């Protein structure tokens, strides 16, 4: 089996799984569809490993393969085929995606057991994995766009999975529409590139870009900024980020898979994949880097004040992706991709632990109601702690090595980039604060009722299941994860998945330790070999200085969080009172939703209503249509009036007409 064959099989497995599960939706008993879904993704991961092994069998300079199945849109100059590109970057991504996906599928097998949409869930989830793999394996812009849109679609159906919740359907359409805005950016970027390079094939475009575009040429900057729009929409970066917190309406494993580990990092992958273009248009790279930097700061401030635990993690995800975007935009490609991977591990872990916690709380997601779960859920607590420490960036957890790798690169490039680096450290400090705010509030302190009953061996159940966002009573057909709750302590598949991720979050960093081994960097090198920036590697000592600063900031953050939320619980309300305006700003998410509503949603709806009520009813219905109609009516009335029914009138008409004709000929002949 060649590397490309196994790569095609990586794609095929989840697709087949999705279709089979969908077609057999009435026939699968119990957890069968869940196990089937997990099995195909595991198989897909196995093929990804095969691809990796095959790829490593070639010399570093020859690790790039293109494989085509059939012509897709091959006409009028457009040269799109169903084509994949297998190179270190795409193999890195398929490994990360299929690996994390397999674990999250495993977790879902148990977590979703009592949901009435069990089969539908796994069909969607498999379809998502297929789309994501298609996105990262695509060999040209058209297939990339297809994967790009498919993940958006899969995200939509999974966000509105509990579709009887109005909040879920709203969140779904919001996510989809913002993602379509991103698609449009990607399509427009493709247009600009096609116009100059006459191709949509990656390799041809990259090759031609060196010749047709000058350094920072306006067309290329525009193309890269459009790519940036796509990346920002998909990766929930400001100002296209408002869909991500709402996307937490989906089941928690979905949040772990799509809205933390894989799909939202597609923007990072996109910029890394397009590095030959961004290299030549540093202005565009600077813009996206600043965007990422703003996002990481703003999202962290919001995460400090949210009380919904899933939303805190969602804002944290935005913030972490801000780091990655910042990294790949300034040329820290391998560091950015490394952080993408470790983030996938620890953020998926955090969501899984949060899911377990929410189950124990009988569906409630509010931090205000949680507390003291440390003894009731020791396993979940440990997992959450490991994930949290990795997120905070405490040595030796994986997040420490990856995040600070990006920041060290920024310091190394110097100049204005140092400002970005400092912002990154500020963000890291806030990360430590909000992470340990969650941990102290949920796991420490006085045990709440649910925690105490769990200690006695009873899992709490809500009398009436309600929507955690609105308190509305749930529809019991579709609308909540089912009457039974599943926690990691009691369900083996969840436990296994979380344990595996906890190990990865703990030791995932060893793949890239400055001065010791740089496996990720060396593996990805062939992809980024043509990049000017990738040669700017910070020295080992700079790296270690950066890592030390990062570690110090993390410890400081944890200490302060300990002071505020554990040692002196009065501090938090006091701070809130003292900084009331800032608190209001944060808790209202910097008013982005309101702003977008005011600037885009309302004017559009008003225009539509205006079109319907004024223009359509009055101008078209009365003016154009009515005008034509009355003209025809008037004409026919005139003709009708001449039809009197008097036979002799008609006869007279004929005679007169004949006489006139005769007279005419008489006169004209003489």
């Amino acid at each position: 089996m060649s590397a490309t064959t196994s790569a095609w099989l990586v794609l095929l497995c989840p697709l087949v799984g999705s279709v089979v599960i969908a077609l057999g939706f009435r026939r699968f008993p119990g957890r069968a569809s869940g196990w089937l879904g997990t099995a195909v993704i595991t198989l897909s991961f196995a093929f990804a490993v095969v691809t990796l092994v095959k790829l490593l069998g070639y010399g570093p300079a020859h690790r790039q393969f293109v494989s085509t199945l059939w012509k897709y849109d091959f006409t009028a100059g457009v040269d799109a085929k169903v084509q994949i590109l297998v190179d270190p970057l795409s193999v890195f991504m398929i490994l990360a995606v299929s690996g994390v996906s397999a674990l999250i599928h495993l977790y879902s097998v148990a977590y979703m057991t009592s949901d009435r949409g069990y089969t539908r869930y796994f069909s969607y989830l498999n379809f998502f994995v297929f789309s994501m793999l298609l996105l990262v394996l695509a060999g040209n812009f058209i297939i990339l766009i297809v994967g790009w849109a498919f993940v958006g679609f899969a995200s939509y159906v999974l966000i509105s999975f509990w579709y009887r919740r109005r909040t879920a359907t709203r969140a779904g359409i919001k996510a989809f529409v913002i993602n379509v805005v991103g698609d449009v950016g990607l399509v427009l970027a493709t247009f600009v590139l096609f116009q100059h390079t006459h191709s949509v094939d990656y390799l041809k475009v990259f090759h031609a870009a060196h010749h047709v575009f000058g350094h920072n040429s306006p067309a290329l900057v525009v193309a890269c900024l459009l790519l940036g729009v796509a990346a920002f929409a998909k990766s929930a970066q400001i100002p296209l980020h408002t869909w991500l917190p709402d996307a937490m309406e989906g089941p928690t494993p979905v949040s772990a898979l799509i809205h933390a580990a894989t799909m939202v990092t597609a923007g990072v992958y996109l910029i890394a994949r397009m590095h030959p273009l961004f290299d030549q248009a540093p202005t565009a790279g600077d813009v996206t880097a600043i965007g990422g930097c703003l996002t990481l700061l703003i999202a962290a401030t919001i995460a400090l004040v949210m009380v919904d635990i899933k939303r805190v993690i969602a804002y944290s995800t935005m913030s972490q992706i801000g780091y990655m975007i910042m990294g790949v935009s300034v040329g820290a490609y391998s560091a950015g991709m490394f952080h993408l991977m470790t983030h996938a591990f620890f953020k998926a872990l955090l969501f899984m632990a949060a899911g377990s916690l929410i189950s124990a709380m009988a569906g409630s997601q509010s931090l205000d109601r949680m507390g003291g779960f440390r003894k009731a859920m020791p396993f979940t607590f440990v997992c959450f702690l490991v994930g949290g420490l990795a997120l905070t960036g405490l040595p030796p957890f994986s997040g420490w090595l990856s995040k600070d790798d990006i920041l060290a690169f920024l310091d190394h490039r110097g100049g204005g980039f140092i400002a970005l680096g400092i912002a990154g450290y500020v963000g890291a400090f806030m990360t430590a604060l909000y992470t340990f705010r969650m941990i102290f509030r949920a796991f420490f302190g006085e045990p709440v009722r649910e925690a105490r009953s769990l200690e006695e061996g009873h899992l709490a159940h809500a009398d009436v299941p309600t929507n955690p966002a609105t308190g509305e009573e749930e529809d019991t057909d579709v609308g909540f994860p089912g009457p039974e709750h599943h926690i990691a302590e009691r369900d083996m598949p969840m436990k296994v998945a979380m344990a595996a991720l906890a190990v990865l979050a703990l030791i995932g960093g060893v793949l890239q330790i400055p001065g010791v081994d740089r496996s990720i960097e060396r593996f990805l090198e062939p992809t980024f070999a043509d990049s000017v920036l990738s040669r700017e590697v910070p020295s080992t000592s700079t790296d270690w200085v950066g890592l030390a600063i990062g570690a110090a900031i993390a410890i400081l953050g944890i200490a302060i969080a300990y002071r505020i939320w554990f040692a002196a619980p009065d501090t938090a309300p006091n701070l809130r009172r003292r900084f009331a305006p800032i608190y209001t700003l944060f808790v209202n998410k910097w008013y982005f939703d309101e702003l977008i509503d005011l600037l885009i949603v309302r004017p559009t709806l008003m225009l539509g209503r205006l079109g319907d009520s004024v223009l359509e009813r009055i101008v078209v219905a009365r003016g154009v249509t009515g005008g034509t109609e009355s003209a025809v009516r008037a004409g026919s009335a005139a003709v009708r009036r001449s039809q009197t029914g008097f036979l002799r009138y008609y006869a007279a008409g004929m005679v007169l007409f004949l006489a006139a004709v005769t007279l005419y000929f008489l006169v004209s002949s003489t």
Partner: protein
Amino acid sequence: MTLSILIWLPMAIALVAAALPRPWVGRFVAALSLVPLGIAISYVARFNTGHAGLQFVTDQTWVGALGIHYKLGLDGLNVTLVLLCCVLFSASLVWAAFREWPQPRLFYFFFGVAQSGVLGAFCAQDLALFVAFFDLMLIPFYFLIGMWGTGDRVRATTKLVVYTLVGSFFMLAAAIATGVVATSEHGVPITFVLSSLHHLPLSRSSQEWIFLGFAAAFLVKMPLVPFHGWLVDGYKAMPIPAVAVFSGVLSKVAAYGFLRIVLPLFPYASVHYQMVMLLIALASILWGTSLAFTTPDARLVVAYSSVAQLGFITLGIFSLRSQGGQGAILQMINHGLVTAPLFFIVAALALRAGGSEDLREMGGIAFRAPVLAALFLIVAVATLAIPGSANFIGEFMILLGVFKAKVVIAVVAFLGVVGAAVYALRVYIASMHNRVKPGVRSFDIGLGDLAALAPLVIVIIALALYPQFVLSRSQQTVKSTVAATHTPIKVAAR
């Protein structure tokens, strides 16, 4: 076997069916409609993709003194549209056959006439013959609305008759003018055969005014803003199978007319009016989109989305680039393939919502109708042209063509792409998702709906996997058609 057999077969089948007992008519016509479909498939299979000119030509003198020929032929522009026509008519007839209709013989006879008319209009290679078929295909619909329609059908019929007859009148005048003026300017005997007229380029001033006649007829027929006054009443009143083919196929005849007649015969005028046509198309996109996401009526959402989609098709044609033309052809097929199932689905939804097509009275249908929900979801995302569907490739090529011709228009047209996502999902969510409304009684679709819907959905998926099926057949002809408009640019510059 000549194309005449394909064209007249549907009418013949309907005539034979009229001799059968009433309960059998529908099933007989539906089953036999697979024969023209099979013939159409054989034509598509035998079509030589490397050839730009006409294939399978039938050419006989019809009215010798006026130079009118009974000339039929297939090329890249119409070969796939003929197939689309047969597919959609078969699907609609199958859908209809599972239901009771008063006076079934007459009902199916009108369908047969309509299909023969549409096929004739697609195949006609003579201007006069095209006009004749164009009017022939409209006549059955006056009766289908008037006799089997719902709601205010008399008013709807009146509007449709007035609009289309005024349009046809303009086209007739323009067609006669083309034959007369072209031959008299060159001093040759009169002819209406398109291939002969191609060699008789009209003077600029004649092109300019004759263009307007054809444009009026085609824009009304599609319809584009502001010629869509008949649309709301007409679509609301038509019986479902009629509206499915009307929106799916008949609107394409007009768009096809631009490619078949207007671009090759009036190249200078096409360039001259390019901006006007692009702006009309753009207005239709924005107008159709914004109305589609405010109207509460499910059927009207589909109707307005058709206006937007036809706007895209026109945009592609008048980009005067081969990408745009290719996209327009593909999008004609795609739009037909999604709009017909959407109307069937609207009917299915209304059945479950107590007969109302009002979205505000629907909701939560999906749970007890998973098959319907799945089919609807596929059709809905194809409608919004999600990348991965053939509709996306259509829109992509259209917008690429426009992007090359007029960047600003392409960028504004993207608003329509975003809007499509909103209205398609809005219909889906409002009917399938959210809480169950009081009047809704949900159940999964029966064999009748499934027999019409499932094949169409399979075709949508197949075309999504391989849009090249259409593109490779049309590319040569589109290239030469569009190339005709590129030379007069130089002439005009001189």
